[in-house]
């Protein structure tokens, strides 16, 4: 086995037992990342010199420390919306094409504190607004299982990098499904955390009441190891509550789900979904039943309003967050001559933002403008309360909810780009968890007839990540979908 094919846990054992060094592990990941990048375009930047420097430091730590953190010396790919000091960070937008942050995002800082090794920055939809990584100014990330298809989005680069062992794990964000959907499309494991569980400081904001910082990895155990490092209250993010961070690997040695009640929501199994997606998710739930879980039908009645609700709230918040990109303090500015400041803004923002950003900014500006605020944003916030209550009511009957992640497997590149609403409808199963602020885990649960990965979503109450990780971990003990790898010529 090549070193880059290891999981975090396996690599940690190897490093601790001096089977190989972080430098060797890093070189293996770098080679894979470089070999595949022309075909896949998972990375916007491969930081070879930084990586080798960090690996050297990590090897020193591994020599000295008796019990190094499991993430020490492990190569990570960082989504390009996370500020990394001294390393170009663009959010895959032309408006930040040359931006070099002067500080690290808190999540990055925490990983550096345990001597991680940053392999590079991964591709994303522009400002993480999208579900296919097609709106990136660096071009789309191809799906390693079928190069004519998307890797999903917005964390397509992170998902593709993990799926192809071009890193050991990756950071990512999830605002409307951006971790879970690409994890599902690429056959890897991803966690959308409870809103506020992980600091968003230094991560370029998309929709501030919905954004979450999480990770994509090769299995649930690895996700738990990452969570142990990145979760927790942060002085710099006032939306991180002072809730204790448990040891996320505790409880992952379970081998059954006895006593657990799992809900299957009617509204997540609808006509129009791909047959194989429904089939594989239901099969996975039957496996959970065999492990001792009690499966109950539940209803989340406001589910169908989640998508329109999100597509008012999200662009509204996006329009506010994009106001800072004014070509004054950062970004390449504009080459054209501007007469005055107003013209300067118009030009910088017209040149810098892609179409999807402009769409979202305009919808948001419209929805928040005088005369429309009550009809759109306020109304959507009220519907959001109802969607949140759906989950609160459901969790009185069940401990966790299992459902599909997307109505389809990975679609073809270009298939949905001419119809924004069609693209938005792909988020119907992921959006509700973001609106409610609850955690949701994506685990691979099978393949379609044309060999495309399918993922299952496990949703829990707020701050109950240990529970959903336990369910995912037990499932991965009796299945090996998460171990399958794409073959790329």
């Amino acid at each position, binding site marked *: 086995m090549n070193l880059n094919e290891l999981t975090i846990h396996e690599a940690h054992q190897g490093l601790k037992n001096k089977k190989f060094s972080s430098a060797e592990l890093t070189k293996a990941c770098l080679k894979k990342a470089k070999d595949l990048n022309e075909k896949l375009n998972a990375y916007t930047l491969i930081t070879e010199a930084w990586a080798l420097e960090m690996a050297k430091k990590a090897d020193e730590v591994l020599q000295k420390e008796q019990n190094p953190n499991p993430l020490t010396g492990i190569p990570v790919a960082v989504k390009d919306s996370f500020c990394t000091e001294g390393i170009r960070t663009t959010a895959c937008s032309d408006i930040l094409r040359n*931006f070099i942050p*002067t500080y690290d995002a808190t999540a990055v800082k925490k990983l550096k504190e345990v001597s991680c090794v940053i392999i590079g920055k991964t591709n994303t939809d522009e400002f993480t607004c999208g579900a296919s990584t097609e709106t990136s100014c660096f071009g789309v990330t191809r799906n390693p299982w079928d190069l004519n298809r998307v890797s999903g989005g917005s964390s397509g680069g992170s998902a593709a990098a993990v799926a192809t062992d071009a890193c050991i794990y990756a950071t990512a964000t999830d605002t409307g499904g951006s971790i879970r959907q690409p994890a599902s499309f690429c056959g890897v494991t991803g966690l959308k955390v409870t*809103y*506020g569980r992980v600091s968003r400081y230094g991560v370029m904001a998309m929709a501030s*009441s919905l954004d979450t910082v999480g990770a994509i990895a090769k299995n649930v155990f690895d996700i738990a190891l990452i969570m142990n490092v990145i979760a927790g209250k942060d*002085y710099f993010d*006032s*939306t991180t*509550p002072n809730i204790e961070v448990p040891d996320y690997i505790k409880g992952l040695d379970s081998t059954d789900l006895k006593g657990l009640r799992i809900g299957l929501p009617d509204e997540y199994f609808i006509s129009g979904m791909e047959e194989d997606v429904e089939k594989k998710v239901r099969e996975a739930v039957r496996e959970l039943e065999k492990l001792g879980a009690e499966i109950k039908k539940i209803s989340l009645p406001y589910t*169908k*309003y989640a998508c*329109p609700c999100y*597509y*008012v709230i999200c662009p509204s918040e996006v*329009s506010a967050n994009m*106001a800072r990109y004014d*070509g*004054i*303090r*950062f*970004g*390449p*500015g504009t080459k054209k001559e*501007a*007469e*005055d*400041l107003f*013209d*300067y*803004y*118009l*030009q910088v*923002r*017209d040149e810098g*933002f892609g179409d999807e950003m*402009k*769409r979202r*900014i*305009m*919808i948001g*500006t*419209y929805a928040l*403008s005088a005369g429309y605020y009550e009809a*759109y944003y*306020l*109304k*959507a*916030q*009220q*519907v*959001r*309360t*109802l969607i*949140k209550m759906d989950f609160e009511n459901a969790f009185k009957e069940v401990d966790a909810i299992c459902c599909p992640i997307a109505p389809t497997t990975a679609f073809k590149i270009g298939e949905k780009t001419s119809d*924004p*609403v069609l693209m*938005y409808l792909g988020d119907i199963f992921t959006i509700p968890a973001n*609106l409610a*602020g609850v955690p949701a885990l994506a685990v691979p649960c099978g393949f379609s007839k044309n060999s495309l990965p399918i993922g299952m979503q496990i949703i829990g109450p*707020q701050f109950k990540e240990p529970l959903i990780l336990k369910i995912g971990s037990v499932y991965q003990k009796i299945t090996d979908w998460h171990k399958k790898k794409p073959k790329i010529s």
Partner: protein
Amino acid sequence: MKLTKEKVKHVAKLARLGLTDHEIEKFQTELSNILDYVEMLNEVDTKGIEPTAQVTGLTNVMEKDIVRRCENPHRLLENSPLPIENDQIKVKPVFE
């Protein structure tokens, strides 16, 4: 509901987006389609329902008013594409 060209131009102006005529036409259709889609929210009876602005339940997260030094302010200025004079970013005139 079809947005008028004037409405699109007005929104673009509010958002400080300098759109071409072609873009205005394109967005006119696309935005109208999106707004038609979200009209669905009007089916929901939200009488008496409190809006959810954020899901943490936190209120008034306070911070001590202590001055902390920025390590190297000049690094921040290096990110600007505009001319720097006396540690200030020189911008275009606001008024004519």
